[in-house]
């Protein structure tokens, strides 16, 4: 647990050092725009078998650094300077084929979005076989055996090999991608936000698997995360990154107890111990929606399969949503299996101006309820009424009226925005469709909305495309879109689960402000 010397300029050559990074810089050079520097003159060493965390907010350059370490940076990103010595070899400058061969027995990466990291039309077994074939490190007749062994290491049944990615849950898919990375027998594994897209219980289990694997296989691991809690829990040493620079590098315990950099202190202050929030769970009165994230954690402490519904009343009045005895049953996923009962006899009332938190682990039916309220899905039993309308029985035209009043904010801002349309166009659609404003008036309204959600300068944001926005900005656009038609109800489905701590706080505070302002 010693701090490795990183200020020296010569790369460390001790056999104990697996990876030695010197003056590494990465720039983004998008076409027709000014290059921006994402990582600046970063130097550090990793010892063999070390488990290191890389922490920073979104945009701090931590993922860019992770991609650079495994030589996965693609244009417009470019390693502009520096050396990456892996096991004594400079991998910053080797050619593509040498790099490809180096990946077996070298360095592997697990991506943030493990849900999408698998080829949807290839069975899990073939994913493994592809890796074996590419490197020839597993003899042909041992492939099946080795694949079973690997899938067992991430605690999945061997039958998973027959499945296609679409048939697995997010957590299972992330486990498969860890097993795939492991199949390279790497000395260094980089985990880029491996659990961010997963819900809390699964997150916990996957992290445990990662930790156990790291101990058992004794590879060097880098855990990239915005979640200081997860990192501090898992790793022995933490690098804190801010605006492309490593601002602090020290043992986890020191970072937690005696941070030196201002930025680390700020991060720590935003990071509240999840267990503390469980204690304060009953005190909804002043915590309101902000609590959503914390409550989701509490479900981890007291897992329940039935969706838990927590209601809390505030004020104002117009029309309320009444959900009574609602059930939703999906047809069985495969023949001969039981039909899936996603929601079972749920009732609650949402008064106007009130915010309501719906808490439960993934698969508990939270999203299904949200979909039923917005009329996307129809309940199998029971009824949902909004004012005088029975949501389940609405025709197309009436659904339009419903959507004028009930709007949804989705979990993943990247998936919820059409990548081909500018922010302005995305916001213009609901404005034109629902408010009847046209031309200049509609445009003014769009800019107003952007200002409401704190995306300034508004003109600049209006012209951007979704991929030019960070996760937090994207989510703000999604919220602005939901607000565009002056809805009475906004349903936010895990609006912050993909975001990091301070963005999370920002978005939740924004939702809260909006709620107070508009009821």
């Amino acid at each position: 647990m010693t701090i490795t010397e990183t200020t020296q300029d010569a790369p460390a050559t001790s056999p104990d050092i697996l990876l030695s990074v010197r003056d590494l810089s990465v720039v983004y050079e998008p076409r027709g725009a000014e290059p921006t520097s994402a990582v600046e003159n970063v130097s550090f060493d990793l010892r063999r078998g070390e488990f290191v965390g890389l922490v920073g907010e979104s945009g701090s350059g931590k993922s860019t650094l992770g991609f650079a370490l495994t030589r996965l940076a693609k244009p417009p990103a470019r390693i502009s300077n520096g050396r990456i010595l892996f096991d004594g070899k400079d991998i910053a400058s080797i050619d593509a084929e040498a790099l490809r061969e180096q990946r077996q027995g070298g360095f592997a990466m697990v991506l943030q979005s493990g849900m999408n990291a698998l080829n949807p039309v290839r069975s899990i077994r073939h994913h493994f076989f592809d890796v074996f074939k590419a490197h020839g490190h597993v003899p042909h007749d041992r492939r099946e055996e080795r694949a079973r062994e690997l899938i067992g290491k991430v605690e999945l049944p061997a039958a998973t090999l027959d499945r296609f990615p679409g048939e697995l849950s997010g957590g299972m898919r992330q486990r498969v991608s860890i097993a795939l990375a492991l199949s390279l027998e790497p000395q260094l594994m980089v985990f880029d936000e491996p659990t961010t897209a997963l819900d809390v219980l699964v997150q916990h289990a996957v992290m445990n698997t990662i930790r156990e694997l790291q101990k058992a296989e004794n590879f060097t691991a880098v855990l990239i995360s915005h979640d200081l809690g997860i990192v501090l829990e898992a790793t022995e040493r933490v690098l804190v990154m801010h605006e492309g620079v490593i601002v602090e590098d020290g043992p986890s315990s020191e970072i937690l107890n005696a941070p030196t950099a201002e930025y680390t202190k700020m991060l720590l202050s935003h990071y509240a111990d999840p267990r503390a929030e469980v204690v304060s769970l009953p005190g909804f009165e002043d915590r309101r929606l902000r609590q959503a994230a914390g409550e989701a954690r509490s479900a981890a402490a007291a897992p329940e399969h039935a969706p838990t519904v927590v209601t809390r009343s505030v004020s104002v009045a117009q029309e309320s949503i009444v959900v009574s005895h609602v059930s939703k049953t999906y047809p069985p996923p495969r023949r001969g299996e039981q039909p899936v009962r996603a929601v079972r006899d749920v009732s609650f009332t949402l008064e106007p101006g009130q915010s309501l938190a719906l808490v439960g682990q993934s698969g508990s039916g939270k999203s299904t309820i949200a979909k039923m309220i917005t009329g996307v899905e129809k309940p199998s039993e029971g009824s949902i009424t909004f004012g005088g309308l029975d949501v389940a029985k609405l025709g197309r035209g009436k659904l339009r009226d419903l959507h004028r009043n009930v709007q949804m904010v989705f979990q993943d801002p990247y998936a919820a925005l059409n990548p081909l349309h500018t922010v302005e166009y995305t916001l213009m659609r609901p404005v034109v469709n629902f408010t009847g404003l046209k031309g200049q008036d509609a445009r003014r309204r769009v800019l107003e909305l952007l200002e409401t959600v704190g995306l300034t300068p508004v003109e600049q944001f209006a012209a951007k495309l979704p991929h030019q926005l960070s996760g937090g900005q994207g989510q703000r656009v999604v919220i602005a879109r939901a607000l565009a038609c002056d809805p009475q109800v906004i349903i936010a489905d895990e609006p912050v689960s993909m975001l990091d701590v301070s963005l999370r706080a920002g978005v939740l505070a924004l939702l809260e402000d909006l709620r107070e302002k508009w009821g």
Partner: protein
Amino acid sequence: MTYALRKVGLLILTLWAAITLNFVLPRLMPGSPADAAVAKLSQNGPVTAATRKAIEIQLGVPNGNLIEQYGQYLKQVVTLHFGVSYTFYPQPVAELVGQALPYTLILVGLVTIIAFVCGTLLGVLAAWKRGTWLDSLPTLGGSFASAFPYFWTALLLLFFLGYVFKIFPTSGAYGVTNVPGFNGDFLGSAVNHAILPAITILITSLGGWILGMRNTMISTLGDDYVTFAEANGLKPRTVAIRYAARNAILPNLTSFGLALGGVVGGSVLVETVFGYPGIGYLLLKAVTNQDYPLMQALFLMITVSVLLANFLVDILYGVLDPRTRK
């Protein structure tokens, strides 16, 4: 398996609907084929009732009520008895169609498949080597060539390769002295006659396939599973073909199905310009001569071929994309 069975069921249902529509629609039209024939004859003088009766018997005026007619019609469809053509009297429609079909299927069908395969491969290559000449040449060339109207390209080729340089014959499917059959002379002549129309179809349709594949492939190349495959050090070929192209081809299959379905009916222009005796040429003649039996048989065949092509693509989809099998 259930997926395939469901698709077969759907195919049978739509086939039945199409066949029935083909029965109902002509009966909703005013007048009858006999009226048309009598009207034609009456230009040369008065038509007696006996002549009219003779014409009706010749053409086979339906007897019995609608349901009996329908039963008869279904029987005719199943046994491929579509009556006698007016234009090529007294040749039966089935015989005419049977003669024309191989030419269209082989020429247009084969070229459509070749265009799809080549265009897709070029599209994959263009996306994989994005930004190099391998990208810009097929992309620009393809969109340039497909921007010309079909008949214009055809006329250009006819003029230069047919009249000026006399490399290829300008019309027909085989030489006047050849007798259709399985002999070297005839086959050589048939291939020679097919080259110009084939090149024309290829030139005008290739660009669309290249662009379609290139664009979907570029978007799959940005997908996480491609990055992850690269992170796992898979060979570039595997990544390009089994990961990126394999997923990118799925949406293009739908357009391929439509193109295949259009093979039978959509070849009117090609065959007219090149005087090629295929289905399209036959259809044009049937329409201009108000040859109802021939038209009815051709329309039915076009509908059926569209349905069959889409069925095949659906099944292919089920094989290629595990997500559709649920």
